[in-house]
Each structure stands twice: as C-alpha cells, then as structure tokens.
C-alpha cells in the first residue's frame, strides 16, 4: 500500500531539528536550531504557535501536557502544553543535552548529554534523579523501556548500553558504528525488542538475552541510518537515513513495506509516528518538516500472511508477545490457556477494568533479577500504569474468559553455579573445585579457569573463540560448550588437564540442529544434555559412550563420582510452579537408575536455582525461594528440607548464591549477594558458611532443639552408609563421632522427658537408642526413682539384646557359655526394681525434689557420663544411709524397718523437708564433694532432718542397690576421731567434716579405700539379695519368665559399664 508523501515545508532555520506528536495526535511539535518550539495543527498550518525556549533546541519530548526540551544552555526545561508557559528546569548538564525522551507513562524523563552522562528524572519531582555514567563519549540518544526496566543509551564511542535504570547496573553493550544520531527505540508496549541503527542497517536486540535477533536492511539505504521509530502498535519500524531515505518495515516479516525519498535528499534527523498510526512526521537538518500519510498502521494487510504463526512452538508464544494485541482473533481461536492473554491483561487493564478476571500478575512480579528466562513476564507497568498510552489497537473485543490455572513458563536450562548468560562478566561455574569466569566485553572474549586448590592445577586463561556459554569443572577436566549458530554446529570442548599424554583437549561437534543445553562432569566421564532431548555420555578422554533420551526438556545436570543427576521438565507447571522430574543414575560398574524420574519437590511458585551433590555425594537441590533440600536415602529417596537461606538474609532483596554443600562438617557454602540474586565477578565475592537448620516445630524449646539436632545428625550421617555401600572409604572417626553425638542427644531428650514425667515418651526414645545407651537410660531411670520406667526399659533392653544376639547367632556360633554370676545379677536387678517400685511411694517427694534439682543441672553436665557426678550420687546416697544408720542407734532414732506399713505411717508425717534437702541437693551438685561451711539455716532445719534421713534410710534399706563406697568405709573408721575433735557435731556435720577430710587424702589412699569398698560390698549385697529373693519370688516369677528364658549379657554390659565408671 503506497503512502503519500506530502511536500516539505519550512519549519525552522537550517540546522538540527526534532519532531513529535502530541498524545492525541492533533498537532505536530517541532523544534529547531532557532530555539523555537512550534506547534503545528497540520502541515498546512500557516500560523504555527511558537514558543521560544532558548537559543537552540536539540531535542523535544511531549507527554501528558508537558513539553520537555533539551536546550543549548545545558538544561532540560519543561513547558506546559499547549500553552507553552515555562514550568521550570528539570535538570542541568555541564554541556548541552543531545536527546531527551519520556518513558511510556510520562512519569520520567531520560536525557543524554555530551558530558557522557545520562540522567533520569522524575517529572513531578525533579529532585529525584539518577545519574548514569559509563559511556566514554557524548551520549547520542537515550530510550526508556516501556516496562520501565531498562534504559538504552547510545554514544559517540560507538557503544550501546542497556542498563537496569533503577540501579544503573550495566547489562550489555554492543559495538556499533555511530556516525549517525543513532536514535534508539524500544518496541512499544512490550519493550521486547530494541532497535538500534547500525550503519546501513537496523539491528534488533532481544530484551531477555541481549542477543541480536534480526537485522533490517534494504537496498535503497545507501547512507547511514539516523533515526528509527516504532509504530505505536509495535509492528512496524520506520527509519530515516542520512541521505534522506524513509523506510518502513514490517518487523515480523522483515519486509520493507514502504520506501520514500526525501524530495531534496536532506538528512532526516527527526521522526515521529502518529499515535494512532498511519502518519509519520519527519524533519530534516535543513529545518523542514514533512509528513508521510497512509502508512500502514493496522495489521489488516499483514495479518493474512501470518496464519502460519500457529505453528509457533510454546516458547515462542511467550517470547513474541509483541503483536499479540493485534491478532486477538487468532489467539481466541487457539487454546485459551496461553500466557499472552495474561500479558494482555496487564496491558489492557485500563481498557477493560470490568472484566473482573483474576489477576495473576502477582506471581510474576517477584524479582527483577531472576532473569533466567523469566524476564519477559515482568510485564506489568510497575509505575503509574499505562493509562496515557492507549495503543492503536482496536477496541478490546470480548474474549472467552479463562479462569483456570495458568501454565507457568518452563524454566530454561542452566548450569548449576553459574550466573546468567547475558551478563558481560559472569561466573560460568563456581563449584567446590574452582571457578570458571567468562568475559565477553569490548576488548576481550575470554574464559578464566581458577582452582580453589592450586595443587590440582594452575589457573588457566583461554580465549573464547567459539563463544562458549556453558562450563563445568572437575578435578580432572574443564568441559565447555557453546550453542550452535546458523553456520556453526554446537560444540563441546574438553580440557582434560589431568591427562598424561600431550593432547590435553578434544572438541566434539554435535549433529546439526542439536544444541547443548547443559552439561556436567563426573569422575572419568562427561555428560551433555541437548535440545534433542538426549543425554550423551562421553568418557573424559573423548570416547562417545551411551546416549539416551529424556522424557522432557532438560533443566540441569550434575555429576559426582559415578552418579549422574538429571532434572528435566516433567510437564507443564501451573500458577507459577514448575513441574520437574529427576533421574539419578549410577554409572559405575553396575549401572542402574536410582531415581526413576520422580517429581522433584520445590517451594510454591519457585524454580530450581541450584542442583548438585554435596561433597560427600548426596544429591541436593535449592529452589529460588532459598530452600535447600537433600535426598534422604534412608527414607525411600525422599527430599528433606535442610535449610532456608532466606532466613539468614537481612533484607528481602538479599540472596545467597550457593556454591557448595558439605555434610561433614555440616556447611552450606554460599555467597551473600546484597540486593541481587547473583554475585558480580568483581570485587571478588567471599564465601560465607551457613549452618543447616531443619524446619522442626518449636525449635525455641529445648525439646524441639534437640529433636532438630538429632534428626539433622541422622540425616547428615546417611552418606556414610551410602559411601561404604558403594565402596568408598569413609571417615570412620567422623561416623563414630556422629553416632556418639546422636546417642548423647537421645540421652538428653530422655532426661528431659524424665524430668517432665513423660515416661511413655521416655520409652519411645529408648526404642531409638542403641543397646548400650538403653542400659544407661535404665540406670538413669532407676536413679531418678522411676522404677516402672526402669522396668519397661529393662524389658526393652532385653529385647534389643536378643535382637543383637539373634543377629550374632546368624553370623556365628552362639555362645552357650553364660556366666552364672551375671545372670544372677540380672535377676537381682529385676528383683530390686520390682521390690522398690512397691516401696517407693510419694513420701519420697523430698528425694524426688533433689533428683529434680539434679536433673535440671544434669543436662549441663554431660549427664550420666560425668564420672564425678556419678560418684557423688552414690556417695550422697550412701552418706545419708550410713548417717541414718548411725543416728538410728541414738535414742531419738527410728527403728530400722523395711515393711510397707512403716513407710505408710511415715508418709503421714511428711511435711516435706524442702528447706534442708534443697540446700543439700543444690550445693554439691554444682561443686561435687565440696565441703560446705556450716550455716544457721542448717540448724534451723534440724527438726526435719531426721525424717529426711529416715526416708533415705527406708529407700536405701529396701533395695540396697548401691555398694558401699570407699568414703563410707573411711568414714566409719574415722568417725570417732572426727567426733573426738568436734564433740558437739551433729550427724550431718560429721559427714561434712568427713567429706572434707577425705578429700584431703592422697589419691592413692582414696583409691585404696575404694578398692576395699568394692571387696567389701559385694558379699553383703549377695547376702541381702538372698533374703530378698524370697520376699518377692512371686513378682519375679511373673515377670522374670521371659528374662530367664534368655539370660543375657545385658547385665554384663551394665555391670561392666558400672565398673568402668567407678
């Protein structure tokens, strides 16, 4: 459709000019070197309104009734429109600004000046401005992205820079020859493409990847392209050249649909598209204004040619949303479950506010930096909406509203431990072996390989001639790969530096049309996943090995030893979730699949951010929400969350970029990134170590803490089992340490439950304990007078022991030889416990109190394992007993009786002697066996003392489990001398004094006494045991039957333990 070129008319005096339309397209606004801004009602308007704004005007922008001009007095001024009253100065430069432009909503103005600076200013509040530096030459042109995310600027140095304009982060740059004005333009509405005039062509860059998408050119262009402008619909692109050529392309079809020649051949330096399309105003360097009418603006002509678009694949639908507004009819006929509609929803917010459609944008508005394939979703205008720029789309037609879940864009393939490809300086991989950095800037296209441990290999610097974008690093080799281009096939390059021959590297070309998506290295092998849904295995030396197909597009791979982990798209995720599957293969001698494509759990609305193995070889994954999950091999290969890195972040925009996971010691190595998802290569980021923290309930309480610690320890110990089963050597010391830690934790939990009187829970805990620790638990239970518990535990211990024995029996000949003495001890133990359980009644609450006190400080004292404390326990108990025995011989003493009635009567007069007992109980716990100075409190509590002692006496005389200690014997002998020295001493004082004296004895002497005590107590015990045996034969025969059947080595272990401790 040919368009009509109206004759040029005089606009300004000779020199640079610029042109734009107002919002409604009623008038054309021009500016020129005469310092005037002229407002033309039409081309034939003979009396245009003139506003003088300065000496020379370089550029003009108009939006929302505000006219901004770049004036020769180095300022950017605002005038009202159409009145033309000065409205202040927006910003200043040190030299004149070359170009000024509004963003799509008119809220901001960007201006580029000859002093190499780009400024972005809020129109409403000119104090809010950002200055962007980075160019080394005067800025030629600036362009703000319609979605307010990027700023593109071109400069005389020939570079085009695109940056995030809110933080000025450098995104990308491209060298172009810039003899022209180099006016850039973002595609309106979506901002998907950036058009850059480069020499005789216009190059289109993709917003997501900053890769060159296509080039528009035409034979007619004989001189440099000066200006490019997009049609408001974003479908057409018009360009003006130095030679005065005007061309219009259909971008989609790359078809030049309009060619016009300036009537005098003057250079076109300003162009503007009418807001409703159909007209282009242009100005030249001679100050003339021209108009092109009838430029195709609606897509009607072109639409018919585009039926073939239906064949676009899924990815394209998401990427090429630019023209979606135009062929709505088509998207209607297609499946409604398609992203573009949603994106249009964002665009058309103001057009159809009444549809009441669920707005799903929230899910896409998370992070601006999660650029791996997600950026195009960041559509929604975050500023004040797109109210002013109703694009020249026909009125929004009603569409069938789809209200179901929306499919998520599948995440792109990535290399774990790499930063996004579009960065100029990036980490291609950072793992436990080393770092591979990629540089792709003006001077250099290179790859640096650096090893954490220089003992592996020295650092390497490679020139990246092939344009590798993927890398992996192992102790043996560096694997690099690039995607294919039109001419070149996708290549894999391997630098096998540990190779012993002279050819250290090999290169493999993939078949045409097949691109490497992701790759990984293992021990002696390399794996490459390709766009053909295939995984190709190579040996590290370059031998091609197995190939196999994947059920879906690969997301990432990781290798460790002989294990290969593959994550792929299992299907389409909905509402922001990804649907990923995972396979774990064992590539060793016995090849097998360990995980057969099961779904990989991720947090809601997150994607996979890192995948790999811990240093010990357990698969581990991290999603974009920062949750670290680890494979639990003992729980049917389930995934257990072990840490949330976001919990440690100070601010919401901070992230941790994980570089490695270690199980022994438990370390999550990561790089803290302030306000970003990825670290920059410079300054060199430092690794921080995060602890693991399983999300157990109530970790503020002691119980929750210990449970978390226990299960964490169990989980992180799993790798020992795996490693030993797959034939690796393991750190057995570490393993035993971990086991010991677990048992200690269990014992602590046991003690805690005991304290809380949760006996059932105690038994549950004991069930997890190892046999030897159960015996310890029994001791603890009996010490704390929980005989019922002790009894249950002893049953449990027997069970456990029998299990162990059965296992042993299976392996070797059963040991028939049972020690008689040991078996009697077993019986004795059970008897004692049953007997004492009858006798122990609530009148021992005084005693219980002591024990509770002891318990509370127990935990701090490494529990029962503390030898000193044990001895003390025995001592204090015995002391009381012996003391009571002595005092009973005095007239005031009670007769020594052991029958039930007696204890009943005593329970009646049991005003709990808390005062004295607590004193006695407390002080020595903190400082065992420390002599305590006499106090008046003590005397005051004297009346209670006897009863207190009686309770002890009863308790002691009944079971008499404890043997006499050395101190006791010593005290018996030395009591007289103490009494002789201090005739006024009470019983307790005697004991105190005795304690003090005993402590002054030399170690040998004390040992001597202990020896004597051992020799002494055993026969006594046995005698007593015989007496008691008759008393409760009944009980024993009831419960002891099972025990007798299997006379076990439990008691042997227990007694051995007891003797060890003493």
């Amino acid at each position: 459709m040919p368009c009509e070129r109206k004759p040029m008319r005089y606009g300004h005096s000779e020199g640079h000019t610029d042109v734009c339309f107002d919002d409604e397209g009623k008038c054309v606004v021009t500016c020129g070197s005469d310092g005037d801004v002229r407002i033309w009602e039409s081309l034939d308007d003979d009396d245009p309104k003139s506003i003088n704004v300065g000496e020379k005007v370089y550029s003009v922008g108009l939006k929302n009734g505000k006219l901004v001009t770049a004036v020769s007095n180095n300022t950017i001024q605002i005038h009202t429109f159409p009145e033309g009253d000065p409205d202040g100065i927006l910003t200043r430069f040190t030299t004149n600004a070359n170009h000024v432009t509004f963003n799509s909503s008119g809220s901001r103005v960007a201006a580029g000046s000859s002093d190499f600076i780009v400024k972005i200013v809020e129109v409403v509040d000119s104090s809010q401005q950002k200055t962007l530096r980075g160019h080394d030459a005067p800025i030629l042109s600036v362009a703000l992205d319609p979605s307010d995310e990027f700023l593109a600027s071109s400069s005389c140095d020939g570079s085009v820079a695109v940056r995030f304009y809110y933080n000025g982060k450098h995104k990308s740059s491209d060298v172009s020859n810039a003899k022209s004005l180099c006016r850039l333009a973002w595609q309106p509405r979506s901002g998907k493409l950036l058009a850059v005039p480069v020499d005789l062509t216009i190059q289109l860059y993709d917003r997501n990847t900053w890769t060159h998408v296509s080039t528009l050119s035409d034979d007619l262009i004989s001189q440099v392209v000066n200006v490019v402008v997009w049609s408001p619909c974003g479908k057409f692109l018009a360009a003006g050249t130095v030679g005065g050529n005007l061309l219009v392309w259909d971008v989609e079809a790359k078809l030049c649909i309009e060619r016009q020649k300036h009537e005098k051949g003057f250079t076109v330096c300003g162009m503007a598209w009418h807001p409703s399309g159909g007209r282009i105003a242009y100005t030249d360097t001679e100050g003339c204004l021209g108009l092109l009418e009838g430029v195709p603006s609606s897509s009607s002509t072109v639409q018919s040619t585009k039926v073939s678009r239906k064949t676009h694949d899924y990815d394209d639908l998401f990427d090429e949303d630019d023209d979606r507004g135009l062929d709505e009819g088509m998207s209607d006929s297609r499946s409604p479950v398609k992203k573009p509609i949603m994106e249009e929803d964002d665009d058309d917010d103001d057009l159809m506010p009444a549809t009441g459609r669920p707005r799903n944008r929230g899910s896409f508005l998370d992070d601006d930096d999660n650029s791996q394939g997600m950026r195009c979703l960041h559509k929604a205008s975050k500023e004040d909406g797109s109210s002013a720029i109703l694009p020249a789309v026909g009125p929004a037609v009603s569409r069938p509203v789809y209200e179901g879940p929306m499919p998520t864009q599948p995440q792109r393939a990535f290399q774990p431990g790499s930063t996004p490809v579009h960065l100029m300086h990036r980490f291609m991989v950072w793992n436990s072996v080393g770092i591979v950095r990629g540089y792709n800037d003006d001077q250099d296209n290179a790859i640096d390989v650096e090893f954490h441990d220089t003992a592996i290999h020295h650092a390497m610097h490679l020139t990246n001639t092939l344009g590798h974008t993927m890398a992996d690093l192992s102790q043996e080799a560096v694997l690099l790969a690039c995607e294919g281009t039109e001419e070149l096939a996708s290549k894999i390059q391997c630098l096998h530096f540990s190779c012993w021959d002279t050819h250290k590297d090999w290169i493999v070309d993939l078949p045409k049309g097949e691109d490497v998506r992701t790759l990984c290295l293992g021990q002696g092998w390399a794996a490459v996943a390709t766009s053909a849904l295939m995984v190709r295995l190579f040996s590290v030396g370059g031998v091609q090995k197995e190939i196999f197909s994947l059920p879906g597009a690969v997301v990432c791979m990781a290798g460790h030893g002989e294990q290969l982990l593959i994550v792929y798209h299992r299907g389409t995720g909905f509402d922001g979730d990804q649907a990923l599957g995972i396979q774990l293969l064992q590539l060793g001698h016995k090849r097998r699949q360990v995980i057969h494509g099961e779904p990989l759990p991720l947090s809601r609305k997150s994607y996979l951010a890192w995948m790999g193995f811990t240093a010990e070889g357990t698969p581990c994954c991290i999603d974009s929400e920062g949750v670290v999950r680890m494979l639990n091999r003992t729980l049917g290969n389930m995934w257990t969350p072990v840490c949330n890195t976001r919990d440690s972040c100070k601010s919401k925009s901070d992230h941790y970029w994980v570089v490695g996971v270690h199980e022994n010691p438990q370390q999550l190595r990561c790089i803290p990134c302030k306000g970003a998802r990825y670290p920059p290569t410079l300054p060199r980021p430092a690794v921080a170590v995060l602890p693991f923290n399983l999300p157990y309930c109530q970790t503020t309480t002691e119980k929750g803490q210990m449970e978390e610690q226990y299960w964490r320890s169990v989980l992180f110990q799993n790798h020992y089992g795996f490693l030993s089963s797959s034939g690796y050597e393991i750190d057995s010391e570490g393993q035993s340490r971990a086991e010991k830690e677990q048992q200690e934790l269990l014992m602590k939990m046991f003690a805690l439950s005991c304290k809380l009187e949760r006996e059932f829970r105690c038994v549950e805990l004991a069930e997890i304990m190892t046999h030897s620790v159960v015996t310890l638990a029994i001791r603890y239970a009996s010490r704390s007078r929980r005989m019922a518990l002790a009894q249950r535990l002893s049953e449990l211990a027997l069970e456990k022991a029998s299990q162990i024995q059965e296992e042993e029996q299976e392996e070797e000949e059963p040991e028939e030889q049972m020690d008689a003495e040991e078996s009697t001890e077993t019986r004795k133990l059970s008897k004692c416990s049953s007997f004492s359980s009858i006798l122990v009644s609530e009148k021992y609450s005084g005693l219980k109190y002591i024990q509770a006190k002891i318990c509370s400080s127990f935990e701090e004292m490494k529990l029962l394992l503390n030898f000193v404390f044990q001895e003390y326990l025995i001592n204090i108990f015995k002391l009381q007993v012996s003391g009571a025995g002595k005092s009973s011989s005095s007239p005031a003493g009670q007769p020594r009786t052991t029958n039930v009635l007696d204890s009943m009567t005593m329970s009646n007069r049991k005003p709990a002697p808390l005062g004295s007992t607590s004193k006695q109980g407390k002080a020595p716990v903190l400082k065992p066996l420390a002599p305590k100075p006499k106090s008046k409190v003590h005397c005051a509590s004297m009346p209670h003392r006897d009863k207190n002692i009686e309770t002890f006496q009863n308790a002691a005389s009944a079971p008499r489990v404890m043997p006499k200690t050395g101190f006791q014997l010593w005290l018996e002998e030395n009591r007289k001398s103490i009494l002789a020295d201090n005739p006024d001493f009470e019983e307790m004082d005697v004991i105190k004094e005795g304690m003090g004296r005993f402590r002054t004895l030399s170690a040998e002497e004390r040992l001597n006494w202990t020896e004597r005590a051992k020799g002494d107590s055993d026969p006594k015990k046995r005698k007593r045991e015989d007496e008691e045996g008759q008393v409760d034969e009944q009980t024993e025969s009831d419960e002891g039957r099972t025990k007798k059947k299997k006379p076990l080595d439990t008691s042997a272990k227990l007694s051995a333990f007891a003797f060890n401790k003493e």
Partner: protein
Amino acid sequence: MDPAEVEFLAEKEMVKIIPNFSLDKIYLIGGDLGPFNPGLPVEVPVWLALNLKQRQKCRIVPPEWMDTDKLEEIREQERKLDTFTPIPSLYYMELTKLLLNHSADNIPKADEIRTLVKDIWDTRVAKLRLSADSFISQQEAHAQLDNLTLMEINTTRSFLLDSLNYMYKLRSNLQPGRSQDY
C-alpha cells in the same frame, strides 16, 4: 617504641584469608589456626596472612572497614570534629600499610584507600600536634588521649616528652630560686 615495633604488634591482628591449599588445623602457642580449606575463608593473624600471600598460597580478604565509602565517612567525621573520633581498628595505619604493600591486588580500590587512610592519619596527627601545642602553651597538667592509636601516640611521644624535659630544664634555669624546691 619505634614504628617497627608497633607494626610488629599489629601483625597479631586477625584477618580473613582465602587459602588455595588444604591443611588441617595447626596448633601454635598463640592458639589454633585453621583448618584451611581451599576457597573457604579462614581467620589468621596478619603475619601468617602476609607470609602465605607472599608464597601465593592465599588471597587476603580486606577487613570490613577497608572500604572507600566507610573510610570517606570516617575522614569526614574526623575533619568535622575537634576531638579524635573512634577508629575501626586500633592498627588502621599499620594494617593498611601492610596489606596494601603486600596484597594490593586483592583489595579493590587500593590506591583510593591508601589516600583516604593517609588523609585520616594526617588529620589526626595534625590534631595531635595542635593539642600538644595548646597543652604546652597553656601549661596544662594532663591531657586525655581517647581514641588515639598506639602508632599515633608513639609518633608524638618521644618528641613531646623530650621537649617537655627540655622546657622544664629551661624554665628551672630561668627561675633558679624556685628550681631548688624541686
């Protein structure tokens, strides 16, 4: 104490390094160091850090305060106030010199940092001189040395004490009668 001695003391300060070798814990009289894992930061004294650096066994992570923004702030503060401001490290001058001389490649903006620290030092020493001057001219009996670092005290100490001694002698000579009292 001469500057070398102060520098020696400064070498006891801890600094983070990223080793490129692996080594178990080492047990020294001053305490245990390590374990050293390649790529993982570990705290060691400056003397060891410099030694390892010279043997190219590690990279030094500059201390947190060794950053242009923070130093600029300190410099402004130092210039604004008449008194001495608190300094992030008691050995800032020595550490800057040591680290910048030996591992400038690991420290971003090394030159700027050098200038800034030198500025801070100059400001502080000028203040010190000024206060010493007023100390003498006003014949004060004592002066507070809050927030002064060892190095700063040592630069002025010998000179100040010697000159005070001389002045005392001179004064007592001026007034022979009174000098006998002492």
